[in-house]
């Protein structure tokens, strides 16, 4: 642990860049005022810059390490997207300033809606959701609104496969639905017989990721579509893995009625240490009235440039409503827009091609290096799963140990213990922006840890050894809760 910024604090020390001193607050009654100054650190600008720069150096990141974190699409975030989203006029724009003073930014947002419509194969898009999980919420809320608009109040269940992200069932609950899980068959597809048995007049919809979190394409997606639609349910596409098919297959063509897109994955906006993301939603024609607001509309004007406006609840009375105080994460949307424009229509399909190529190459090389694949008979999508079950049985080295030792080798660990149905799994997603040399170096690191696990398992079980801290005690963290510094 570095010294806390609070421990660097010295009474009276401050940055030179302060607002003018105004001592009195005559308009506010004494009882409403704060009695003691807020307990913030007192530090010089150099103290602060040095402290947080040092903290940054304790992170792994895409800019510094290979980061093959499955289901997270840790691809390079182009710097131009950041620079152009942070142009001073965009940063200074107040969200409630008149639309006439924001035609530039609104044009970008409108065009992003168009791009996402095309890529997803949907009839309309709202950029309002501020993250993937909020996109899911909006999507399921629209499914609910659609059933209710038809007077169908009997639909009380959302179906999710057992391989689904945890956000899917959590979202269904937030939208007031019961969750019914359907299992995966041995080849990694949804078990169709169990799905047929699960659907009925109580089915509001099915939430599906395709390719699934198992790293394979759901081959019988059209059968799934027919089963769910025949039961009167709608199909929700969790866009977490869109990077695998962008520019190749459109979710709309697979029969999905609703989709959310994680712009921080497929459209390469930064993950920022945990956010902000953006999770725009797209819908088929019949769900258009329910899209969350605001939506950017383009109004043609004879003899003048088109005008862009934000449509709110008064213009869209059937909308599921607002999800934020203003217009979602505009700065993230602008980054995605710049990225999409630089890729262009010819670049979109290449993303999926090279992401898939890198994943399949890595899968073959790891198999050749002695790793066991969870679905050896299947083609990888943009990611795939290695299971260390046998290694654990033989050596006691778990997927967690293996992951921690990879950190010592200078690569970020793949996703571990997800999906939940594959024991001791590593979910590996290299993304399209990595070179063959990086992939080969990763294979070498994996082989080295495998060798260590067999010859010196204690070394792996006690990893990491070279990080700023050794393995952390999560049990103590939850038991002796310390979530805020106190003097």
């Amino acid at each position, binding site marked *: 642990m570095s010294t*806390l*910024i609070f421990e660097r604090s010295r009474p009276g020390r401050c*940055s030179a860049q302060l*607002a003018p*001193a*105004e001592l009195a607050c005559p308009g*506010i*009654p004494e009882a*409403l*005022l*704060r009695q003691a*100054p807020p307990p913030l650190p*007192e530090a010089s600008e150099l103290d602060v810059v040095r402290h*947080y720069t040092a903290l940054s150096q*304790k*992170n792994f990141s895409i*800019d*510094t390490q290979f980061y093959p974190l499955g289901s997270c699409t840790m691809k390079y975030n182009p710097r131009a997207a*950041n620079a152009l989203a942070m142009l001073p*006029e965009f*940063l200074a*724009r107040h969200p409630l300033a008149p639309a006439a*003073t924001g*035609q530039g930014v609104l044009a*970008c947002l409108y*065009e992003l809606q168009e791009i996402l419509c095309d890529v997803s194969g949907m009839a309309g898009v709202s950029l309002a959701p501020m993250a993937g999980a*909020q996109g899911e919420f909006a999507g399921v809320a629209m499914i609910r609104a659609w059933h209710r608009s038809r007077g169908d109040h009997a639909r009380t269940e959302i179906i999710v496969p057992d391989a689904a992200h*945890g956000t899917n*069932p959590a979202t269904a*609950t937030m939208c007031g639905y019961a969750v019914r899980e359907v299992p995966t068959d041995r080849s990694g597809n949804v078990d169709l017989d169990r799905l047929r048995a699960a659907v009925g007049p109580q089915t509001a919809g099915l939430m599906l990721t395709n390719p699934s979190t198992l790293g394979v394409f759901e081959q019988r*997606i059209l059968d799934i579509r027919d089963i769910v639609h025949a039961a009167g349910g709608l199909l929700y596409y969790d866009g977490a893995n869109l990077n695998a098919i962008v520019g190749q*297959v*459109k979710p709309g063509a697979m029969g999905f009625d609703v989709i959310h897109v994680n712009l921080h994955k497929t459209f390469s906006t930064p*993950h920022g*240490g*945990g956010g*902000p993301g953006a999770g725009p939603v797209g819908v088929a024609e019949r769900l258009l009235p329910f899209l*969350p607001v605001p939506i950017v509309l383009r109004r043609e004007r004879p003899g003048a440039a088109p005008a862009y406006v934000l449509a709110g609840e008064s213009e869209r009375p059937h909308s599921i409503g607002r*999800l*934020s*105080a*203003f*217009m979602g994460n505009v700065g993230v949307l602008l980054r995605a827009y710049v990225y999409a*424009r630089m*890729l*262009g229509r010819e670049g*979109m399909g290449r993303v999926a*091609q090279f992401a898939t*190529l890198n994943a399949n*190459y890595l899968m073959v090389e790891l198999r050749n290096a002695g790793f066991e694949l969870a679905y050896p008979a*299947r083609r990888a999508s943009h990611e795939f799963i290695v299971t260390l079950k046998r290694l654990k049985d033989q050596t006691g080295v778990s997927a967690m140990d293996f992951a921690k030792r990879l950190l010592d080798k200078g690569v970020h660990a793949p996703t571990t213990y*997800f999906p939940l149905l594959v024991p001791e799994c590593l979910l590996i997603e290299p993304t399209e922006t990595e070179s063959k040399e990086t992939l080969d170096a990763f294979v070498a690191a994996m082989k080295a840890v495998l060798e260590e696990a067999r010859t010196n398992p204690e070394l792996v079980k006690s990893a990491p050894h070279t990080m700023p801290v050794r*393995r*952390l*005690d999560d049990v103590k*963290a939850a038991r002796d*809760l*310390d*979530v*805020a510094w106190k003097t």
Partner: protein
Amino acid sequence: MLDAIGVPGIDDLFDEIPATLKDVQLPRVPAGAREMEITRLMQARAAQDGRWSSFIGAGAYEHYVPAAVWQIVTRGEFYSAYTPYQAEASQGTLQLLYEYQSMIAGLTGLDAANASLYDGASALAEAVLMAVRLHKSSRRVLLPASLHPHYAATVRTIVSSQGVELVTLPWCPQRGTLALQALDGLDDHGAAALVIAQPNALGALEDVHALTDWAHAHGMLAIALVNPVALALLAPPGQWGARGADIAVGEGQPLGVPLSAGGPYFGFMTCRGAHVRQMPGRIAGRTVDATGAPGFTLTLQAREQHIRRSKATSNICTNQGLVVAAATVHMALLGPAGLQRVARASHAGLQRLIALLRPLGVRPRFAAPCFHETVLDLGVPVQPVLDAMRERGILGGLHLAPWSGELHEALLVCVTETKTEADLDDYVQAMSAALAHARHPA
């Protein structure tokens, strides 16, 4: 690489996808642009939007952000890192989150904070759900009508499908604050929580002590909705009334986050220590490593969707990491003195503007004290006045007619430390000219 895989071409990698589904046509996506071309386009669009002298607040506030803030947080190590699930390789992000939680807990005077939610409005919705979980016997929550209407709308969207009933409480027409008499007139006190906004969306400062005590006396939780810059001056929610508010939330944007047309911002949430296990969202905690040395990790993950799935406290998966990093650096740079100066200068600026406008016959609508924002009665239709001021490069405030029919000649105006005396003089001159024209059209 294709040879190693054993396929002839890259398209063969998609052979498990039914051929009828393939569609590579993207007619609505423009052709690719080089970085230089897209730079020119974006610069032109930014220039088209221009720069304005803005006096609009209403939930998003212009404050000066020191250059160091975004230079530090856009370092690749913060910018391009993932959620710190591999704690040993993410100590930078985790320590920063712990420091953030400490700062925001201190600012609100409560024990525990999460690592942030999406924005102020969605944070309020999560607080409402949290209060209902904590209260157990009521699913009714009282919201003031003086809540920002976009907040009320967001809360409605997010909580409506979980059977939560929202009851709206009117504001006192003279003061612009919640009327305690109106509260006592409520026929049924069986609510889970009362939301108390300080300041409220009309800019008015509530009697937070009396309201908090009233909520507690009626068996409700008190949810504070607060402006974090105002808290440098105002009593923190943890010290409201005899026992303090139970949950505090708010929009974090005023802490070093640019307006950026509406986002990304972040919502903060703090609570009493006893309630932390019902809090949604990520939490960073301090612990020790295998050698006993201190370090940081995400904690209480058993509340979250990736563990608890359909029984999680929320479906939220992200925090607003990078924006929170900016707020943390911002608070560290300003320190207690700097944040208080920003708050005082903002308050003083509004007082000065009110004084300068008085000779024009423009007066605050409400009698309650305010922080840096207030409702002005123009006595003439507002929109033409705003349009005329815009001709002079000034965004004069927010017309409140869409919020409430009662406020059709009212303007919500905000002053922060970014406005100099010259800026205020320009505002007054522009309004004076616009009013003269409105009262005596040529």
